[in-house]
């Protein structure tokens, strides 16, 4: 067990290094823009006098040598000072904090549904390989995988916003509703969560379904499955107790890889459903050319994915006894 702890420590250190790499990448990327960074960091609408620009340069420390700037940047990041947003007239960090939890909620629920459904459907489809169930579900999954997620969102808006007005299609709560207690608030949020998270789940579902199904088909050709059958286990028992646990391993790896995609998917879905999260914030930042905000969003979303990856990695280590610690 102690060796396990050491492995986890190594992985955590690795994650931190990667986050640091993102910070560095972030820093240099935005410095790459030609012209005066000070002009870039200024809102476009402001007509700046040379004195103002000078002041800004000193304020942002742009007159110092590059490596000093870099170190200052890093220190600031770890202090939580991610710059100042022009659009919101607030420190970027505070703006992000307002929106980040909504994204985490959306991604959490969406991924959760996608993973559970993907695994179950994939397992059943693999077991009934070639039967109508397998063929239809696989076809459906391929179709969902091939579509842009924001388009699916628009389709849902058409269906539920225009025709069947039974589910809310925008925002996170009904702005006109007065909530007497926590429960009605939570219920409202959940109601608003249904469409965006379903959209996200349907798109992400496909890759987990495919990996589970394909891995399981491979697993069923393995000798130990035959041993299990020889011992007298029923089909169901063999599927869920012997085959699926083995097929979970590559599935966890795929989930880890998919974490980068799910954030990207959530971004556009948020825009479509006006879900007040990081994606919606990104859209605002782009439209208003609020680069400090954009830069910070990139940093934070990357960091989120790296941390989530770390957890997936640790889970994998627990699941696979063959991993040499």
């Amino acid at each position, binding site marked *: 067990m102690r060796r396990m702890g050491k492995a986890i420590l190594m992985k955590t250190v690795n994650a931190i290094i*990667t986050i640091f790499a993102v910070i560095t990448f972030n820093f240099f990327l935005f410095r790459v823009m030609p*012209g005066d960074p000070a002009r870039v960091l200024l809102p476009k609408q402001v007509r700046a006098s040379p004195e103002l620009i000078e002041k800004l340069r000193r304020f942002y420390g742009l007159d110092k040598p590059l490596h000093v700037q870099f170190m200052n940047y890093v220190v600031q990041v770890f202090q939580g000072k991610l710059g100042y947003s022009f659009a919101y007239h607030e420190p970027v960090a505070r703006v992000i904090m307002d929106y980040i939890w909504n994204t985490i909620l959306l991604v959490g629920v969406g991924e959760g549904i996608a993973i559970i459904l993907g695994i179950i459907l994939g397992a059943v489809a693999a077991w009934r390989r070639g039967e109508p169930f397998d063929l239809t579900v696989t076809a459906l999954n391929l179709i969902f995988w091939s579509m*842009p997620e*924001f388009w699916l969102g*628009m389709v849902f808006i058409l269906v539920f916003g*225009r025709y069947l007005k039974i589910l809310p299609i925008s925002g996170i709560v009904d702005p006109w509703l007065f909530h007497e207690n926590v429960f009605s608030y939570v219920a409202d949020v959940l109601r608003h969560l249904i469409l965006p998270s379903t959209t996200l789940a349907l798109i992400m579902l496909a890759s987990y379904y495919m990996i589970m199904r394909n891995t399981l088909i491979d697993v069923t050709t393995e000798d130990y499955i035959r041993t299990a059958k020889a011992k007298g286990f029923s089909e169901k028992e063999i599927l869920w107790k012997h085959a699926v646990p083995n097929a979970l391993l590559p599935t966890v790896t795929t989930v880890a890889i998919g974490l980068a995609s799910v954030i990207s998917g959530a971004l556009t879905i948020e825009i479509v459903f006006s879900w007040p999260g990081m994606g919606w914030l990104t859209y605002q930042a*782009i439209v208003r050319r609020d680069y400090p905000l954009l830069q910070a969003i990139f940093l934070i*979303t*990357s960091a989120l994915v790296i941390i989530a990856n770390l957890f997936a990695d640790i889970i994998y280590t627990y699941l696979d006894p063959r991993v040499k610690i």
Partner: protein
Amino acid sequence: MGMRWHLYKKRLKSTWNVYKRNKKGMVGLTITLIFIFIAIFGPYITPYDPKKIDKTAMWEPPSFKHWLGTDNLGRDILSQLLYGTRISLLVGLFATLISMALGTLIGLLAGYYAESLLGELLERVIDFFLVIPYLPLMIVFATVMREMEIKLPLFWIVIIAIGITGWSGTARVVRSQTLSVKERQFIERARSIGAGDFDIVFRHILPNILPLVFAEAVLTIGGSIIAEAALSFIGLGDPTHISWGMMLNYAFTYAAPLRGAYWFFIPPGLAILILVLGMTLTGYALDEVLNPRLRER
């Protein structure tokens, strides 16, 4: 030289024979070819100029005059769709070329020099790009390039942004393939007769993994097309050209779904869906044909 070409043709023919029997592969290929056909000839058969604004015919649902209706400015949707095929395909193709070139090169080097510092470093770089969410990265690249006021048309900025975001998947696959091919005997033989690193990598390893790279490329084009749609949807695309993504952008901006104007946004999304589906099927079929172990599925 003639001998090798002859053998190559034979191998191509036998691969095609196996491919022909793959049902989903044939469906995928048919779809892809249809779209390529539309991309090439579409603009010549459009009933209207897609950019022509007609204020008398705004928001019209499908009719005999406009088979797929009109958009918010009275432009014919069908014409836009046909024109957009060319743009979307071109962007997808060029972006994929960049991804493939980058990914294959880095993957080869990372695999071949895997034991040395260079290999380790490249592996880290690949992992780095794999773990960063692609859309924020693409957005950042696109934004930076736009601001840089490079003398590059937006069209190419989009292509480059997609290309330099999507290479890591290919790189990972190429790297692992290179690692396994590297161990094969014919490499040792080549080395023993004095072949240099460059020779081994490009004249021996690369041809062996080329079929796989090709299969990867087909799958990547699908991803690139969706990426272009996403980029355009967010507003970082090229408004001077009509692409499916731009159509979706306009549809959303002018609240087409809420207005019930299904003809505005369903066609472009459906087009993306069908084309990407076709390419995915083709890619999977290629994978199966080239890697017999997968055929059982």
